[in-house]
């Protein structure tokens, strides 16, 4: 696979959380608005890109018996960096995301990519993979956040967009609403895939 393929596969074919269905905990918890989802996605992307890069660079030195421990130390370090930087420069977002920033450490997408991809591939391919998957995750969270924000509070990126008599579905901002929104998006994606497959005779 070329570098470009490694990058683009994260945007549709293996887009988390829809296709990999990994990292659902932050996906469901932080997508109460489009901006929150995007913030969480970007924080995860940063960790994913750098942990992929370093795991790939160090893959020859890390003995396989202690690889998971080493990966976790690398990942955790970048998570703390994100946490400190966010607290220093994006305090309101830091307050909203709260506990879900430290919890990026245990996000299975990140450890999954380190274990399944970066520990076997070169640094450039790993960087492309991390960037692609991270961007896919960010887009997913952003779209999911926008959908929930639109239905749950009648705004889009904090700007009211619905007609004046619109009664917001407060339910959409609660955790069950996240499942419903996720299901709607998954169904829509499957529909698109099916139409594509029928047109192109399968991929």
């Amino acid at each position: 696979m070329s570098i470009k393929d490694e990058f683009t596969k994260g945007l549709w074919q293996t887009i988390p959380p829809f296709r990999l269905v990994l990292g659902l905990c932050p996906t469901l918890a932080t997508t109460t608005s489009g901006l929150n989802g995007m913030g969480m996605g970007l924080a995860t992307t940063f960790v994913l890109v750098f942990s992929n890069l370093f795991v790939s660079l160090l893959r020859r030195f890390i003995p396989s018996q202690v690889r998971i421990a080493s990966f976790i130390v690398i990942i955790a370090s970048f998570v703390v960096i994100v946490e400190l930087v966010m607290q220093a420069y994006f305090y309101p977002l830091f307050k909203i995301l709260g506990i879900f920033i430290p919890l990026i450490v245990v996000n299975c997408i990140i450890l999954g990519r380190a274990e399944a991809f970066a520990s076997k591939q070169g640094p450039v391919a790993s960087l492309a993979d991390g960037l692609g998957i991270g961007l896919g995750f960010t887009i997913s969270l952003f779209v999911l956040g926008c959908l929930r924000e639109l239905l749950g509070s009648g705004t889009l990126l904090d700007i009211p967009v619905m007609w004046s008599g619109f009664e917001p579905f407060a339910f959409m901002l609660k955790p069950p609403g996240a499942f419903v929104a996720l299901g709607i998006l998954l169904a829509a994606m499957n529909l698109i895939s099916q139409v594509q497959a029928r047109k192109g005779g399968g991929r």
Partner: protein
Amino acid sequence: MRDIIKMIIVLTIIGAVSGLALSLVYEGTKAPIEYQTIKFVKEPAVKKVLTGYDNDPIADRQKMIIGEDERGKPIELIIFPAKKAGATFAVALEGKGKGFGGLIGVMVGVSKEGTLLDIGITSHSETPGIGARVSETSFTDRFKGLATNKEIKVDGISGATYSSKGVMAAITQALGYVTTFSKEIF
């Protein structure tokens, strides 16, 4: 045996390098984090209790050492001065008093002449609907204009005696600091 030694060495190096990197980031973000925390947590209260200033009380904050905690670390008191044409005419500072559900933090604005300007509750864990009513302006307004050289006493909220007393204790503590540090502040 060689494997074990290699594992130990690799893990140690990774841990040490991560630790070093994190301590550098921590040092670098310490000042902005402190500013942000004060700005978002204390600024609303400071803005409520001080008026008519032309400086940035958050940027001009002063730190006083008011004692040591049980580990021997100094306890800091942050004072926010309100200045007009470079002269401090009032300060805001936080005091703490024991309420019903723990400590109540109260931001207190005091003028140079010794008048209580206004108070704002910064943190509390009082019962919602009962003790938590101390943070409503109908209660905090009762302290406006009191003289600071007399005992701070107003009518408490009925049913929330402990909480009301906690607020008064917090104000008394803050005013005590003002008396102690009056030379440095004004």
